[in-house]
């Protein structure tokens, strides 16, 4: 089971902070997961097109072609602004 987290502006735009689902067999990378989510409609399309959008697998930021097995914690978030 995939655990997906959304933070900051993304969480607000999607009105969702977290969801779980089984990864479809044909979705094997972070890029493909994003495409899957963007197919949900305009709101998802817009939010996940945010400039500089980041993705982390198991709390490590990674590239958009990183493989997924389906048992990860995946987080999407905008560029960080702490400090």
């Amino acid at each position, binding site marked *: 089971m995939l655990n997906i*987290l959304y933070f900051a502006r993304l969480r607000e735009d999607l009105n969702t902070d977290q969801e779980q689902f089984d990864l479809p067999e044909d979705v094997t990378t972070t890029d493909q997961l994003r495409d899957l989510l963007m197919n949900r409609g305009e709101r998802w399309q817009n939010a996940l097109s945010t400039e500089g959008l980041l993705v*982390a697998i198991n*709390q490590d930021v990674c590239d958009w072609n990183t493989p997924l097995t389906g048992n990860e914690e995946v987080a999407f978030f905008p560029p*960080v*602004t*702490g*400090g």
Partner: protein
Amino acid sequence: MSVSKQTHIHVQTEDFDLNIEYAALRKDCPAIGAITTFTGLMRDFNSNGHSASESHSANEYDSVTTLTLEHYPGMTEKVLSDIVEQARARWELVGVRIVHRIGEMQPSDQIVFVGVSSAHRGDAFAACEFIMDFLKTQAPFWKKEKTTEGERWVDAKTSDDDSADRWL
């Protein structure tokens, strides 16, 4: 000489006390010759393109009334620990303490503290600034400002990326 290396990382809603952090850094280690601290405070104007230059008059920028900080629990601590380990690999450090607040803050409130102790001042200065630069660009915190014009998420600054890139 045996030097105990200590790292403390706290993400918390409560305010922090510089004196307590400093006392912890200073404690029981006569090999320490230098302690540097950085404290980040909430300013009362937004940083989207505006500078603090005196030439700006009061109505050229929006006054920020509150700031709300959220983070990614777990990942934040992991990223900060990793930054500290990178700093320890580059410089000879004794203690490192990081406190970052989350939740709602008012102008002049303390947001973040980084303190470093070392035998040498060059190491203490470099490590403290290195940790702040990477905290800014890698630690998963996000700021939302409430201004006289409404609410908005703070944009990341390319100047922060530039500061971090200096260390590469």
